């Protein structure tokens, strides 16, 4: 564990220098990689372990975004990010309490529905209480601040993943993923465990949303609650391998870079590729990229040759 923490810190320290060393575009590309790393790792923390497919990421991300839109003038930056995460956590607690007894597809569909519910509730409240839809952020922190914030969030997500995986909570969540009833007979309270895991992973999505909001200047429910962010997170985690933290990180980096490279040349190709990758992963490598035993694979090749 000490070694792991040291490694994360070392990588973090190197990445922290990027704003001085790299051109703006690369910095913002790195930021996207880190954003999806944080989202996908925190998603895997809960959904990978319990095998409860959550499509709530866009709702949680959007809640973070809206926290920034509303509280920006009143809170200092670090507190704002924390608050964004907190709002998402609270929401996950309440929503989780209501839907956590559902399983499989029902859980997935309901978490997706939550996003729509929040989006339309915010639209309605904004319209009837504040007489507007859409908020403008004028005073925003510098790009460097945002970059470092995102870096810290990504590192925090990875470290939390590791801590949770090694803890009783992680053990219980994996137990639920393997066989919920058996875990219950062995003394795990599935409801409580799921709720805590869901709320914990929600914090990251909210915090990331709160940070990214300042890039948009103008925030309205349709862009804040874009379902694409949620889907992409799930795909990245699944393609990478949702039962590890390495998988989502690798997939987040590869797919973010690929997405930009393809967009600049073949605009339609990225989504097609994402679909193909997902099918390939589900059919042939259900554990994701991280589950491939590269050493064996390469070793066998050598023997064959």
């Amino acid at each position, binding site marked *: 564990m000490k070694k792991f923490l040291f490694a994360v810190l070392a990588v973090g320290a190197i990445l922290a220098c990027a704003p001085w060393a790299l*051109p*703006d*575009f*690369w910095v*913002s*590309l790195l930021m*996207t990689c880190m954003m999806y790393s944080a989202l996908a790792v925190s998603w895997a923390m809960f959904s990978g372990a319990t095998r409860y497919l959550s499509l709530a990421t866009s709702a949680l991300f959007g809640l973070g975004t809206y926290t920034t839109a509303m509280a920006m003038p009143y809170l200092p930056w670090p507190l704002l990010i924390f608050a964004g995460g907190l709002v998402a956590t609270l929401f996950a607690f309440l929503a989780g309490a209501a839907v956590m007894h559902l399983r499989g597809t029902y859980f997935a569909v309901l978490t997706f529905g939550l996003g729509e519910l929040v989006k*339309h509730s915010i*639209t309605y409240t904004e*319209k009837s209480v504040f*007489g*507007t*839809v*859409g908020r*403008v952020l*004028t005073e*925003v922190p510098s*790009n460097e601040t945002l970059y470092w914030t995102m870096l810290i969030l990504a590192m925090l997500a990875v470290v939390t993943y590791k801590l949770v995986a090694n803890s009783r909570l992680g053990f219980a969540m994996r137990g639920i993923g393997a066989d919920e009833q058996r875990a219950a007979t062995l003394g795990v309270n599935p409801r409580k465990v799921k709720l805590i895991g869901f709320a914990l992973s929600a914090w990251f999505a909210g915090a990331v949303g709160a940070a*990214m909001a300042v*890039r*948009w*200047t*103008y925030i*309205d429910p*349709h*862009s804040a609650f*874009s379902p*694409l962010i949620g889907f992409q997170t799930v795909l990245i985690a699944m393609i990478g391998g949702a039962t590890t933290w390495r998988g989502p990180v690798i997939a987040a980096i590869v797919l973010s870079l690929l997405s*930009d490279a393809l*967009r*600049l040349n073949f*605009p*339609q190709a990225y989504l097609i590729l994402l679909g193909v990758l997902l099918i390939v992963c589900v059919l042939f490598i259900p554990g994701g990229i991280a589950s491939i035993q590269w050493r064996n694979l390469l070793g066998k090749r050598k023997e064959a040759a």
Partner: protein
Amino acid sequence: MKKTFTARRRAIVTALAAAIAAPAISFAQSADKPVRIGYTMSRTGPYAPGAQVSQEPNYVLWAQQVNAAGGLSVKGQKRKVELVAYDDRSEIETAVRTYEKLMGSDKVDLILPPWGSAMNFAIAPLANRYGYPFLAPTALSRKLIDMQLPYFFSLLQQPDKMMGALVDMLKANNVKTIAVVYMDDLFGIENMASLRLALRGTNIQIIESKSYPLGVKDLSPVLKSIKAMNPDAFIGITYPPDTILASTQSREIEFNPKFFYASVGTAFPLYKQRIGANAEGVLGMGSWNSKVTPEAKVYFDAHTSQMKKEPDRWASGHAWAGLEILQQSVDKVGLDRKALRDYIANNEFNTILGKIRFSRGENASVPGTVGQWQNGEFEVVWPQARATAKLVTAKPAWK
């Protein structure tokens, strides 16, 4: 042995020197270097239909025309234009990242704005930070202008002007009652607020106002209830799909008020194609057509023949005017962006929409307008000073 070594070394040194000098040489010949102009445009995603009607065809056409004429005149020196364009997939985050690349890493000479208010909200402050003049043809929000970004210039008439013109027209035609449906986003709500403000002090009554969400698929229940109230005028603050939806569904239920007004998309050629002869008499947001100036006719014909489609009768004209303003300014002051910004802010320009001058970042010359489909053309019918045809005061029945 030694000789060959030095000879080779000399060759290497010469090659190196040449390699180092090469960029310097190309610098010296900067007149031959193209002027690089960057932008992102929604070629995929929900913004694509609008972006591909009102904005990108104009950018492409303009670059073609400028290059065909020998290049863009930079303080009298002709240089070719090179468009550096990317798809932003209708995603704000992607657009932000790409403009950062264009201005921060690629260091393009100039930029052109993306499509739509939400995109402009995100990019305008960025352009301001990097100090790039930003002449926006499709930004429609008072809030954006109120941010007072020095490098931001809005070309399209804002909600207060558009709704002001509409109310003037209704007043002049003795309208007493109106019913409104509007989109529940910034565009709908700002226009609705402007409409209410413009109606203050008149004796026109809003007998119904209903909002609806983005992506609405059925407006007929609302339209039926409005029909039962029999208002003099129907006002839809709508986007292209809803504009067509409201029109076709009104026809189905035979709701035919004296004034039928819809917003974005009414001035698109698409509207005429989809609604056909039923477009006759429909009012909407539009501000020009090929009759407003002789230059507008030239532009209209060039667009139709080269882009293989007609421009729309609203934002296209403004997009083109923005390009003309940029071109004239570059001709005068070159590519120094601060000087460009000051020149744009303090001068008046000849465009296809007539003379344009900016006041605090807003187009101060083109007033709010109302357009109307008449015999296959979207005519400007209000205010009378800018009208290209007389207003038809009672909409003919749907066919």
